[in-house]
């Protein structure tokens, strides 16, 4: 299948990067890029393919992040196990939010608002509860070693991030080539027409949010392991939710490589901004906001859509 070969090529190209690139700075850049791409891929399942825009994806991300953090520090659970459990934790919240929202027919802006509210509620709870360390947060004790999911050499984290992005790519390719994906896209386009074609809209949406939120939970676990520190604002604050939306929108919602493209563009722009404006607080996000308005106004199908249109125009011209 075309997608599988394309994915394989991309993965093979990206695999040797840690050995080709000597700069620690660039490796960190690459890791954060892949992390964003994976977060965007998670959002893309529900938002891009399913058409349900979540404005509070941090709710699932943060739950996964805290899950693995708490399990490690309070119960001594191995971080690799914690990683998997983080995915389940994210899915758990996703299913609750999804069940309630979709059961009551919430769509569009109302659904977006609910996700926003849920993320805020979780942030406040995490800020108050003892087991999440309240406002102080959780610090994972340094204990480097692959068995502990704390790679001394950043290469380990790069490979993990790449593996996650690969997972995201394969899942997205599956959406492009499966009954589930076809039905999900039908739901996105027109729910009543989907029903009339035999699609159980509620069930499809629920499966989509479970998948999307579990991936976001895994992204949260990755964050916990990479930075070894977590607090309510990091976990449930607006930055993650905004990034989760922006990455696919820039790259192209509902496409296979959109999130990857979007993450690359976003992080490049972000680096440039930081160079120009030093560490000015908020400026980074100002750029994000401007990008969002810009993309929606001028490039609603994202960079991937632009590339496709240019390629088509080139083909038409050569005919």
């Amino acid at each position, binding site marked *: 299948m075309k997608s599988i070969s394309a994915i394989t090529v991309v993965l093979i190209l990206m695999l040797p990067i840690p050995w080709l690139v000597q700069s620690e700075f660039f490796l960190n850049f690459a890791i954060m890029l892949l992390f964003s791409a994976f977060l965007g891929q998670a959002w893309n399942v529900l938002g891009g393919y399913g058409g349900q825009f979540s404005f509070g994806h941090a709710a699932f991300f943060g739950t996964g992040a805290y899950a693995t953090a708490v399990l490690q520090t309070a119960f001594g659970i191995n971080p690799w196990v914690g990683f998997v459990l983080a995915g389940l934790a994210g899915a758990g919240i996703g299913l609750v939010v999804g069940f309630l929202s979709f059961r009551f027919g919430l769509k569009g802006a109302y659904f977006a608002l609910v996700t926003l509210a849920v993320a805020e509620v979780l942030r406040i709870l995490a800020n108050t509860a003892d087991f999440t360390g309240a406002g102080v947060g959780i610090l994972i004790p340094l204990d480097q070693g692959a068995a502990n999911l704390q790679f001394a050499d950043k290469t380990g984290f790069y490979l993990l991030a790449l593996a996650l992005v690969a997972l995201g790519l394969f899942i997205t390719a599956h959406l492009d*080539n*499966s*009954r589930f*994906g*076809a*039905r999900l*896209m*039908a739901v*996105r*386009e*027109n729910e*009543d*027409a*989907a*029903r*009339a*074609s*035999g*699609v*159980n*809209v509620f069930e499809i949406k629920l499966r989509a949010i479970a998948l999307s939120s579990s991936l976001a939970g895994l992204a949260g676990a990755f964050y916990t392991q990479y930075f070894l520190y977590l607090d309510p604002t990091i976990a449930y604050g607006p930055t993650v939710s905004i990034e989760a939306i922006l990455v696919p929108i820039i790259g192209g919602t*509902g496409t296979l490589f959109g999130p990857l493209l979007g993450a690359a563009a976003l992080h490049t722009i972000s680096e440039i901004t930081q160079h120009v404006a030093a560490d000015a607080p908020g400026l980074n996000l100002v750029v994000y906001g401007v990008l969002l308005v810009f993309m929606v106004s001028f490039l609603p199908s994202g960079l991937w859509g632009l590339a496709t249109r240019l390629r088509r125009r080139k083909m038409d011209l050569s005919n």
Partner: protein
Amino acid sequence: MLKTHNISKSFGGLRALNAVTLGVTNGEIVALIGPNGAGKTTLFSVVAGFLSADEGTVSFNGTDISDEPPHRICQLGLARTFQIARPFAGLSVRENIAVGAHLHIARHREALAKATDVGSMLGLGDILDQGAKGLSVASRKRLELARAVATKPKLLLLDEIFAGLNPTEIEEILPVIREIREDGVTIVLVEHVMRAVMRLSDRVVVLNNGEVIAEGLPDAVVANARVIEAYLGTGGYTDSAEVAGA
């Protein structure tokens, strides 16, 4: 095959359907006609599960489907098209039809192949890879039909499939519908285009103000005084017989 019994449905103070009882037998083409606002599309929506009736039951092949959701009813073999076509705009024509095909086919590639077959049979062969957005009215209607047919229905409800088509396009779709019936599908059409009604249907049912006012062979129904009165009013005449005579 399909039986509705005493279906009533009101919207606020407006009684859209009043104790509608009718039956459709296997293999026939039945036309449901009546003036605007007679309740035809409402009846379709109730039968297909998009609306729930206030009173009455619907049964399909012996199963009570009155409270079933639309996707369940489609799974049981009853498919419908919408009066204003609802394509999946972001998908291609083939992918649109494939969604219907997926009802019985699990593998995506197979569903796409089936979609190609159904699409070709319905005259969409040339535009299968085009996006469903921006299609002409006639193509949109064919797509609506193709998607419904791809679900392998036993009964097909067509809501004004001929509306908005010019005479040539109507002539082109008529044999397609007959072919669908030949494949063993029972068809109920809501129609205003009388030419299609007369040429296609075995039986006609007339709805007015939410009630069945006439039923029978096409020729008999169009001559029926009450039917004429429903469409044209009495024009000053005081009884139906005079209307018929005039």
